[in-house]
């Protein structure tokens, strides 16, 4: 068996990230396929070495094939292309309980575009709490440059309880929907306990984003090291 084929299969199995027993069977099946394809090409007059590379090329890149072979919904799915699906999902697009990605959908979603119960991102849309550049939380609290929600805090804030900054063009402290004026709302926190609670909640909100991003970076690094350890050329 050609070394090139073996190496390709190693890479596919590496990206597939399945249990040992499953990997053995998947590998056997793919190997059978590639052997047959190589033999077919060789029978058509293609030189043996070209036939091997032709078979590999027709099969698809190791990363695409390997990612395709991953479990439908894993405990942890980290990938650099396509959609990651898992309890913790990290990818360009991610769907999971905790999702990180350019587009992230999850109970906790972190991304450029994030959708979830709690969403953090450039465009964050959430049921309970959204934190981001443009932040929408129709049922909960939204914090961002532009925030729309039942409780909305931002330069431009619109909601049941809307609190905006003192800039000329902002909708400042004005409730556009039913509810009280934002400044009136803040008066609830003028007691010592109220202030402490407000500071604690705000601190938690703003700390959560870097903490979760730290967790994501750590997981991504582990995946990077796993692949690098198996085949350094794959991460060059």
């Amino acid at each position, binding site marked *: 068996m050609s070394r090139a084929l073996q190496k390709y299969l190693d890479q596919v199995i590496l990206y597939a990230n399945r249990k040992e027993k499953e990997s053995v069977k998947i590998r056997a099946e*793919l190997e059978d396929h590639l052997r047959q394809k190589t033999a077919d090409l060789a029978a058509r007059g293609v030189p043996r070495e070209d036939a091997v590379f032709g078979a590999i090329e027709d099969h698809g890149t190791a990363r695409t094939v390997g990612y395709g072979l991953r479990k439908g919904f894993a405990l942890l799915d980290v990938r650099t292309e396509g959609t990651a699906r898992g309890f913790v999902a990290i990818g360009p697009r991610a769907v999971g309980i905790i999702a990180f990605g350019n587009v992230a959908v999850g109970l906790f979603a972190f991304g450029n575009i994030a959708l979830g119960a709690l969403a953090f991102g450039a465009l964050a849309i959430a049921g309970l709490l959204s934190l981001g550049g443009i932040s929408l939380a129709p049922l909960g609290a939204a914090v961002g440059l532009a925030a729309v929600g039942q409780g909305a805090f931002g330069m431009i804030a619109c909601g049941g309880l809307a609190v905006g900054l003192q800039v000329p063009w902002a909708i400042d402290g004005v409730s556009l929907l039913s509810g009280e004026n934002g400044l009136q709302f803040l008066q609830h926190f003028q007691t010592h306990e109220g202030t402490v609670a407000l500071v604690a909640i705000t601190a938690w909100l703003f700390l959560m984003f870097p903490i979760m991003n730290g967790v994501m970076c750590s997981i991504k690094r582990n995946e990077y090291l796993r692949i690098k350890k198996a085949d350094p050329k794959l991460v060059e």
Partner: protein
Amino acid sequence: MPIWVLSGRRNMTRLSKQTLDGNVETLILAVLESGPSYGYAIVKELNERAEGILQLGEGTIYPVLYRLEEKKLIAARWRLAENGRQRKYYRLISKGHKALATNRRQWQMLSAAMGKVLGSAENLLPQPQVKGATI
């Protein structure tokens, strides 16, 4: 005997993943309808039946096969092949037959409707080549 060629690479449009997603399952079920088969043979059969219009990455068929197996539309068994190696054979089972019948009906309806609205797909099919000219 006419030589069948593609009507020009520029005229070929790569089908998007979204267009193919889900439909590859139906195509595989259709191939397996004619009897048990294995990965490589399924790919070959698909390419032959599609007359080169569908160019699937051969490795992408396996995730679909495993998904069909999980959905219990097909069953798989390892058997000894003629080359002396173990080979995984897939076959359609009753739930798969029903799914194929449903999908086929839906596709025929959709295809008829799309054809009427968008026009025939005749110009996408390979043209017979005559010496010095393409019909």
